[in-house]
């Protein structure tokens, strides 16, 4: 008869946890949480956090429209106007690999180009280094050459794992620079390429490579002395 009835707590004391143990577990958990929380608070108190605050600019320059200020502003604007390039100039975006040709501020042509990788090459013999950057800033077209010949510098051999040749004649390469070259100083050239599929990417050693048609257009429309802005 008793087998048909559900067992009561009094009959099976081992089925439920003793209240004493339950209390110990609860207290231990609470203590652990308190300790952890306290430790976190202490760490947070020790540490600092990057707080972004709105910027409130304080204008230091004299404002207002009195004559002195207007005269100074006009003089500075005149200086800026005098510094602006006249005629034809080239702008090279070395991140997006775009070359733009302007005449008096009017865009004549946009071309896909290739620019420097930014990689550093180290000579294993002596630690000498070359940085394959397209330079930043303003340069000038110093000379223009049709059917240019490339005199390969030391890095061109070292990069391929070879010692630079002792015979200077082995440095000349008439095929690599394309049909035209515009020299912009310090060995940097705007020239053609055999690697046309790589146009639009940063793959060069600092020079600016163009496709054939774009190179011819730039060559024909850019006089010597034109400014080149590279950024």
């Amino acid at each position, binding site marked *: 008869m008793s087998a048909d009835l559900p067992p009561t707590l009094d009959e099976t004391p081992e089925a439920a946890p003793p209240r004493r143990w339950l209390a110990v577990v609860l207290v231990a958990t609470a203590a652990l949480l308190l300790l952890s929380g306290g430790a976190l608070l202490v760490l947070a108190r020790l540490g600092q956090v990057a707080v*972004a605050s709105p910027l409130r600019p304080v204008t230091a320059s004299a404002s207002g429209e009195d004559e002195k200020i207007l005269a100074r502003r006009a003089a500075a604007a005149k200086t800026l*106007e005098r510094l602006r*390039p006249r005629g034809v100039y080239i702008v090279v975006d070395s991140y997006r690999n775009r070359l733009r040709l302007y005449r008096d501020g009017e865009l004549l042509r946009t071309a896909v180009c290739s620019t420097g990788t930014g990689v550093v090459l180290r000579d294993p013999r002596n630690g000498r280094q070359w940085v394959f950057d397209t330079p930043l800033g303003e340069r000038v077209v110093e000379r223009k050459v049709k059917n240019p010949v490339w005199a390969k510098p030391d890095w061109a051999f070292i990069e391929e794992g070879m010692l630079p040749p002792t015979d200077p004649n082995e440095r000349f390469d008439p095929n690599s620079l394309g049909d035209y070259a515009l020299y912009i100083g310090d060995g940097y050239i705007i020239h053609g390429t055999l690697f046309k599929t790589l146009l639009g990417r940063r793959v060069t050693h600092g020079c600016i490579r163009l496709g054939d048609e774009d190179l011819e257009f730039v060559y024909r429309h850019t006089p010597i002395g034109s400014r080149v802005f590279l950024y």
Partner: protein
Amino acid sequence: MRTWNLSTGILRSVAACFCTSLAAAALAAPGDPPAQPLATELEARLAGSPSIYLVVDVVRRVVDIKARAVLLDRIVLHGVEVVAHRPFFSPRHAATLELPTVWTVTNGPGDTDREIIAPPVLRPYSSGDDEEEKEPVPATPTPRPTGPQPTPTPVPEPPVSYRARMDSGWDLLVTDALPPQGLVARFAAAVRDGWRRLRGEAPPPPPALALAMAREDAQRLHHLARSGMKILLVAAP
């Protein structure tokens, strides 16, 4: 005799400086504060050199890439804020910055983030003509690319969040997302920083002018953040 001449020269120089100072003082009205440079004047100075410079307008929220006063490119900012490391339990307040001013990059990622390649050994140069002779001549000869080959190392993608140290003691923080300012995120960051301090790691960086912009724009500015780059900060009305 020579001594007398030298002394006379020095006396003349001192007198000239004194007179110039007097003239300048006479031109300026008494009690006038020293003239602060205008933004246009500062830009005229920067445009006098052949270098690229940036103009950050914190009110219009744009970064202009310029040279010789020519606008080469423009980047639109999502936000301009000052990021400073402060104790977690301190109140937030707006930071002030006196403008216009010119900062110069003293150390930026454009100086340091470089891939370095070096062949382990160099073999004697050979033009490759001998090898060509052994090869069979193809029916339609194709131009062999001998010239400036692409560098063998692929260019790593620039980061989207980085700092450049300025001569003003500030940093310029270029980022595609400002640090999270929620309570939980800030608390977690403070705990992490506290743990770093306990372990004796580097102290937090100096305060930074944070320029938040699109991901690609942050990458575009990366190579420009080089030593010597001038940044003109203005607040256009």
